[in-house]
């Protein structure tokens, strides 16, 4: 039986844990920054709490890394050294160089590296991808993607707001759609980006705009917001081809609308998350797919190179926003 350990017990750690519990894998335990033998998430899953990363690695076949982004690469390299398969939250790393180090380490060790670009497992995004692949709208010309919510909060040490840890809105939030745009329209040649906090470092909210030119000629326009009133979370896309258009708007297609007076004081989640009602949570769909790759070798919808390329695009966006220039991407040889 496949043994899994999760590093990190924030919202992603919890979502992945729920996913693993829907597979035949054995969720052995968790590791968190501060050791807590009574970690509620571990108790909920009847799992142990480890004291160190190495202790966890020794007890598992797969490590699922849900830590702040700046910690990803070195953990992946260490796991590869120990010949453990890796599932890693997006972004794979904060820089192309670090991501490359992680990808190479896994390749050399012969272990799987599964980057959790969960958007590919959301049914609306997956359906649009298959429609495009079927030729429903012809050749893709322009792609518009929006992902908007409020600034992530954390009870302590909000690493999301520390760009040296999360990469900020371009790297942390908008990488979702950068990966999706590349999935739809292919390799990216040029990146141009702006974000509020580059212009106004003290801003209490952030909003990024990014335009990608794909080698295919297609243009992608990305908008990412940490600017809306909680608990807003909305996504939109519009894929226009020379033979049609596909449109998604999470708000216009929400199947439940509440006009209830004084709703019970629902706590706002730390991080805005999509929530259209589905029989299976897309995080679970993703983890189930990863499980099949791990045990049966089924090809994964997300390859290590996909995770790497997304980091390269996001890193270029960060640089473009800082320098005010268009950044041209070179193909990376892994």
């Amino acid at each position, binding site marked *: 039986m496949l043994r899994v350990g999760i590093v990190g017990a924030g919202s992603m750690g919890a979502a992945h844990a729920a996913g693993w519990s829907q597979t035949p894998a054995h969720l052995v335990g968790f590791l968190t920054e501060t050791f807590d033998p009574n970690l509620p998430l571990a108790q909920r899953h009847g799992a142990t709490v480890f004291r160190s990363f190495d202790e966890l690695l020794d007890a598992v076949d797969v490590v699922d890394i849900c830590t702040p982004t700046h910690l990803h690469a070195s953990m992946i390299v260490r796991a590869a050294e120990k010949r453990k398969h890796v599932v890693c939250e997006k972004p794979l790393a904060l820089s192309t160089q670090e991501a490359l180090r992680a990808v190479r380490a896994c390749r050399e060790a012969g272990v799987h590296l599964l980057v959790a670009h969960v958007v590919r497992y959301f*049914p609306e995004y997956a*359906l649009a991808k298959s429609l495009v692949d079927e030729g429903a709208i012809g050749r893709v010309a322009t792609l518009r993607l929006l992902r908007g919510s409020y600034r992530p909060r954390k009870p302590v040490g909000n690493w999301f707001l520390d760009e040296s840890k999360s990469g900020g809105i371009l790297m942390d939030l908008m990488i979702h759609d950068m990966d999706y745009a590349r999935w739809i329209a292919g390799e990216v040649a040029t990146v141009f980006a702006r974000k509020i906090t580059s212009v106004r470092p003290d801003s209490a909210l952030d909003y990024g705009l990014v335009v990608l030119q794909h080698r295919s000629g297609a243009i992608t326009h990305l908008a990412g917001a940490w600017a809306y009133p909680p608990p807003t979370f909305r996504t939109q896309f519009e894929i226009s081809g020379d*033979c*049609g258009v596909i449109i998604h708007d999470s708000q216009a*297609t929400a*199947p*439940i609308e*509440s006009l209830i007076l004084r709703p019970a004081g629902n706590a706002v989640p730390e991080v805005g998350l999509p929530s259209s009602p589905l029989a299976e949570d897309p995080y679970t769909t993703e983890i189930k797919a990863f499980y099949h790759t791990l045990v049966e070798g089924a090809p994964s919808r997300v390859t290590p190179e996909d995770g790497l390329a997304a980091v390269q695009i996001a890193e270029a966006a960060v640089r473009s926003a800082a320098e005010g220039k268009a950044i041209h991407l070179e193909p990376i040889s892994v």
Partner: protein
Amino acid sequence: MKVKIGILSFAHLHAEAYVTALRAIPEVDLIGFADDDAQRGERFASQFELRRFPSYEALLEQKPHGVIVCSENSRHAPLVNMAAQAGVHVLCEKPLATTVRDAEAMVAQCRKAGVHLMTAFPMRFSTPLEVVKARLDSGELGDVHCFNASNQGELPKKHREWFVDKTLAGGGAIMDHTVHLVDVMRWYLGCEAAEVYAVANRIFHADEVEVETGGIVWVTFENGVFATIDCSWSRPPYWPSWGGLSFEMVTSRGAVLVDAFKQNLTVFSHTLQRPQWAFWGSDPNQAMLSDFVRAIAEDRPPRVSGEDGLRAVEVVEAAYRALELGQPVRLR
């Protein structure tokens, strides 16, 4: 254990979706189907590469664990009764029957035979509707006061001619589009319909069909909750989907708007030259079939019963009576 399932008749178009859905369930052994319409039978046997039995009896002789009845509405009763006599569990397409008498007999036969009779009410398995049911049960939404509901659709004739044949379908839009929402309301309220009123007309497709094509059915429940159901075949053929099912539920704390089929992409394509909705929400038919199969495997009743189907047929029959009388009809 593999659960052996057969399909009785492909008269209802849902049979096609059920084949795909059944094949996606690992524990199912889909043994084949039978159809009294030879031409239709041949077409679907070849389309789905599915074994076709020469008769319903021949299929039942294979001792499937369960069958799905997809015949014309008025022909549900004989097939359900045949399956019950063979000791086979039944999932029957909605409406369960075209008359209360038939529906009662079917429920009684299955009970006597000790087989489950499940009515195909997939809305009980619609994720958005389940979420709202859970919120309602938690008390978060207050007490329900009324429903403003709608199950409009296109003229079903384009799929199957018999849908607009009064003898085979049992009626028109009211027969076709009332039962889903009646069942949802009974499920939400845990309470039975007490009174029914209805109005109808035949303006849509007046030159094509002889049954009612437009209508509103009123239902008042024993607890005083009242509801309207728009069952009209009012969607034109170039609507972005077949139709939909939605309702506003007004409670003591406000209102909740629910649309079971709103999770769509809008797709404009040169091929069609108009927008179409591509559904990406979770498939309620799949979940309904899984429940039927698991109920058999686990030897427990399915989440929807034959009685649920019967109760909805009672409302439909009362609606037609109210149409004649021009006044509400009391059920109980």
